[in-house]
């Protein structure tokens, strides 16, 4: 088998500037900077910090391999894909690739809401590097895959989010590149469509094409990929068979106990509140490293308030995912009529009277809105471990591998 991607000592360095959050410079700073040099006066410069998004990454991929890239947020997965897709340049090292590359880092890049589905197929196709003839040839196939026949001449701003995603994926899926690079795009769309996309990617790879796939959904990685790369803090931790790498990854994520969110950059929202850290407490109010099935569990969330606004009508939600990235449940204070008003404190508790989760690793999403505007939202905010417990008070444990949620029930002969 031929090597189609060779990555050698790849390093990507970012300079973090602590003053201001903008990466671009203002002329003022440049002018002021050169002025400082002239007068030779040492004024305290904004501190700069180097950050290695990728650190000496090397690997080789063969033709036709399906490779999953896993790792926590900020591990360098997206940076790696960006370098491979030639969007950003590495700071050092080399990548050699063979064949036509297509990358799908975001669904529907370049889609214009005012244009119709038909127009967007052509626009998006050409942005992804397809020639007009090629798009015309595949047009019917794309439309059929996306299931948007009746809406072809409707502006995509009127599309449902599902239709939008289907159309966007359909265009990219019909690129027929030799190397296909896909970032977490299946996070959107319904289960049916996810299955279809995975199927399409499987087809793509069975015709000898190479796929690189980033996902937090371990089930998808396990299904699709025969090989996986585990990145941690910009370095390659393990490369190998996907089941083995996933097992290593899941084990290591459990070791992270202190869930600090203060430095997280991958959040969205207007910042009326900002989640800072998450603490786990047991039924006697002690901080613990893991929760126990069947016991009372408290998830205490610390946040920072924007002092300039009165925090009213604050909705908070916590979504819990299993270790395959599938959402198990979502808990929020709206459904329980406990919306927070006139918030003066800096933390709240989510109290679960009887924790109905089996032993395992769970990850969670934190979400909050104030007056229906997103205040803070962190995907994959962290993980916690649940230990086995006597949920049914019988001293017996439910069987392994039979789901992750327990329900209080009884059987009665009638």
């Amino acid at each position, binding site marked *: 088998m031929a090597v189609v991607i060779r990555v050698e000592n790849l390093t990507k360095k970012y300079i973090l500037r602590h003053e201001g959050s903008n990466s671009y410079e203002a002329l003022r700073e440049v002018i002021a900077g050169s002025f400082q040099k002239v007068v030779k006066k040492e004024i305290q410069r904004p501190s700069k910090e180097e950050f290695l998004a990728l650190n000496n990454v090397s690997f080789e991929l063969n033709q036709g391999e399906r490779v999953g890239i896993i790792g926590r947020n900020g591990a360098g997965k997206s940076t790696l894909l960006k370098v491979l897709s030639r969007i950003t340049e590495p700071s050092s090292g080399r990548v050699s*690739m063979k064949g036509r590359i297509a990358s799908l880092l975001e669904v529907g890049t370049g889609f214009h809401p*005012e244009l119709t589905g038909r127009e967007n197929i052509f626009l998006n196709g*050409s942005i992804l590097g397809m020639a007009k003839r090629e798009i015309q040839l595949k047009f019917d196939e794309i439309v059929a895959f996306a299931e948007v026949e009746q809406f072809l001449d409707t502006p995509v701003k009127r599309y449902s989010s599902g239709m939008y995603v289907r159309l966007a994926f359909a265009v990219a899926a019909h690129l027929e590149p030799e190397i296909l690079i896909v970032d977490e795009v299946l996070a959107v769309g319904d289960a049916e469509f996810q299955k279809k996309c995975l199927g399409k990617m499987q087809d793509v790879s069975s015709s000898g094409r190479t796929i690189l796939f980033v996902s937090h959904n371990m089930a998808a990685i396990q299904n699709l990929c025969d090989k996986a790369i585990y990145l941690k803090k910009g370095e390659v931790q393990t490369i190998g068979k996907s089941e083995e790498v996933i097992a290593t990854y899941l084990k290591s994520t459990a070791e992270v106990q202190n869930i600090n969110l203060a430095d997280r950059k991958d959040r969205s929202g207007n910042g009326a509140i900002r989640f800072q850290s998450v603490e786990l407490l047991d039924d006697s109010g002690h901080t613990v490293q893991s929760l126990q099935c069947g016991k009372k569990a408290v998830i205490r969330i610390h946040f920072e308030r924007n002092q300039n606004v009165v925090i009213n009508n604050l909705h908070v939600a916590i979504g819990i995912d299993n270790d395959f990235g599938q959402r198990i449940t979502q808990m929020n204070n709206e459904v329980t009529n406990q919306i927070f008003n006139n918030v003066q404190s800096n933390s709240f508790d989510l109290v679960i009277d009887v924790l109905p989760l089996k032993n395992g690793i769970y990850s969670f999403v934190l979400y909050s809105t104030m007056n229906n505007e997103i205040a803070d939202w962190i995907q994959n905010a962290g993980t916690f471990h649940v230990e086995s417990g006597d949920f049914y008070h019988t001293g017996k444990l439910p069987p392994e591998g039979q789901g992750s949620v327990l329900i209080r029930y009884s059987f009665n002969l009638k």
Partner: protein
Amino acid sequence: MSLPNNFDIVIEPNKRRSNFWKDLWNYRGLFYFLSWRDILVRYKQTAIGILWSVIRPLATMVVFTIIFGKVAHLPSDGIPYILIVSAGMLPWQFFANAFSEASNSLIANSSMLSKVYFPRIIVPISSVMVSFIDLLISFVIMAVLLAWYHFIPSINLIFLPLFIALAVFVTIGLSLLISALNVKYRDFRYIVPFIVQFGLYISPVGFKSSVIPEKLRLLYSLNPMVGVIDGFRWCILGSTIEFNRLGFCISILVSILIFIIGFYYFRKMERTFADII
């Protein structure tokens, strides 16, 4: 297990992309589709659509004719003053629109730059092409005006494509430079409207460049739009319009210089666009 490979894409830091021209050729469709998108969107979002391309230059022409022709009584050598203004307006409107749009084009398409690979140079150039469509519409207005005043263009008209090419060349050169600078220094968002407004008065749009004193004429030609605008007038209105050959050569040299600087600066900066945009 792997035989010696001939990889066709090699990514290394600070490496000039050897396949720049090949890539540009492969993505040639994108020039068309990006311009097509901008035109479609513009006419879908506005109520009277294409009429805007007519109303804007027409209004400016009328104002300039009144101010420079009627109020300031600048010489017209027997040609209706509105024709002098409109012949100058054609290239200037094109430059002003194209330059404003193109300078902002990279920022306007930032999500594309940070998510997809394609030759970045396509973005500002295709937005210049959008304004080129407006230029063609303006030519129709010009033709109507010429017919209205029973003015027959001279044989010089055959040289017009040459001056159109020069106008496009200058505009692209300057747009490449400013659009790349704009990614790094957002101050250019404020500088660009200033250049355009200032340029309107220092370029011979509302008057002929013959009103500029003789000894300042060569200095005046350092503005590349002077050569372009004079050329347009000479082509459309005929040889009664003075055409300064030396000044024109200076304008061409300045244009080439701007283009080279713009092109190389753009190529140098484009690899960092995704990181700083």
